[in-house]
């Protein structure tokens, strides 16, 4: 794959790469840095050693993103166990970052609260909380709410759609990006 074409392809897959990293890295700025890093690493490696099958580009860049996200998690875990001077210095930086993260978290919570409050059916609220927050299995929820599996499929789909529509209606797309990527 020639360089320009590869660049174009990597730009195309960038949102997916970011989404993969965001699945495990909640900090927006860090996730964007890692995304750029994943694209750069893929670009450099493939410039040296092109893929036999260009169809495998998506899997390749996904794996690169995944590896970077895992490495970041490990690094964060190591930082939590540090002691002494280095810890003190990094703790100061972390505290500043924590204030911003906390403010972001509160804004996001406010957005979700407003939307949940607006959901027209109380069952939607219960369903979303049990399925997405409590990670309860479908059988238990179905049993408690008197739903068949087929009915559950439709109800959860609708609950998500109602949530999505209300969220989009209440917050402009740009604000949404700020809230949920932040």
């Amino acid at each position, binding site marked *: 794959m020639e360089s320009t074409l590869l660049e174009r392809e990597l730009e195309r*897959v960038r949102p997916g790469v970011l989404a993969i990293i965001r699945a495990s890295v909640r900090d927006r700025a860090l996730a964007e840095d890692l995304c750029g890093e994943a694209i750069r690493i893929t670009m450099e490696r493939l410039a040296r050693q092109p893929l036999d099958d260009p169809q495998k580009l998506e899997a390749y860049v996904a794996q690169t993103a995944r590896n970077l996200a895992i490495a970041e998690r490990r690094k964060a875990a190591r930082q939590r166990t540090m002691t002494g001077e280095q810890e003190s210095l990094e703790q100061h930086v972390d505290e500043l970052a924590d204030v911003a993260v906390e403010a972001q*978290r509160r804004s996001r919570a406010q957005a979700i609260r407003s939307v949940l409050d607006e959901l027209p059916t109380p069952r939607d609220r219960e369903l*979303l*909380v049990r399925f997405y*927050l409590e990670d309860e299995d479908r059988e238990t929820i179905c049993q408690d709410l*008197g739903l*068949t599996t087929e*009915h559950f499929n439709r109800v959860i789909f609708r609950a998500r759609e109602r949530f*999505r529509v209300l969220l989009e209606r209440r917050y402009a797309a740009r604000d949404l990006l700020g809230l*949920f990527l932040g």
Partner: protein
Amino acid sequence: MDDRLMTEGRHQQQYSDPRRGASPMTATELERINHYLSGTLPEADCIELEARMIGDDAYRAEVELSRQLRDGLRDLRQTGELDRLTRGSYRFWHQPAFGLAASAVAVMASLVALASYQQLAELRGEAVSETTPVAVTPGAATSVKLLRLVRTRSAGNEPDLTWRIDPAVGQLDLRIDVGLEPAAAYAFQLTRLDDGSSIALLSSPAIGVTNGEVAISVHAALLRPGRYEVTVRDPAGHGSSYQLAVIDE
């Protein structure tokens, strides 16, 4: 007799939905995404899912929505607001059983009206189709326990109909999801479609919405082999129609 009730879901009018056309995710797929986001999806499945996220924008949007929901709900719990929001919100009249019981009362009233109408029609010597039910006494039909239901369409963004049959009482429960923003009540009509004619079997001017659904209970004895149409309309006249076929196998 082994009856099969089949829906074909022919919508005459759909409710507004900005994402109409998007394919719905199955609950199994949503669970898979949940496992992925909670870090409990096996490695091989993760790789497959992530490759799909890269190449499929619609799928990635679904994963992102799930992530937003999970993160947002977690934030809400941390701020202590979630319990306040959900506590006591699911009251007894929101329970499906209550809604169904209410609609069953409405439908039974319609059945009485139907029976009266048929008696009057016979008295007047009007032609009544041979397949139109004349006996609707609960428990009188022998075919009820054999009634089987086959779904022929999947849930989409548009209004949708699901059902459940209780063979013990021979009752067919219809649940019509009326869209993302339900009105307070809907007019309902069940019509039998015969060759070149239609006969309204049941109708109600206003059935309340419970959990975003219009819930109707119909005694299966009413649905003899033939074609039927279920229609729901909001006060503005917007709504949907579904065609059902009860087939004698």
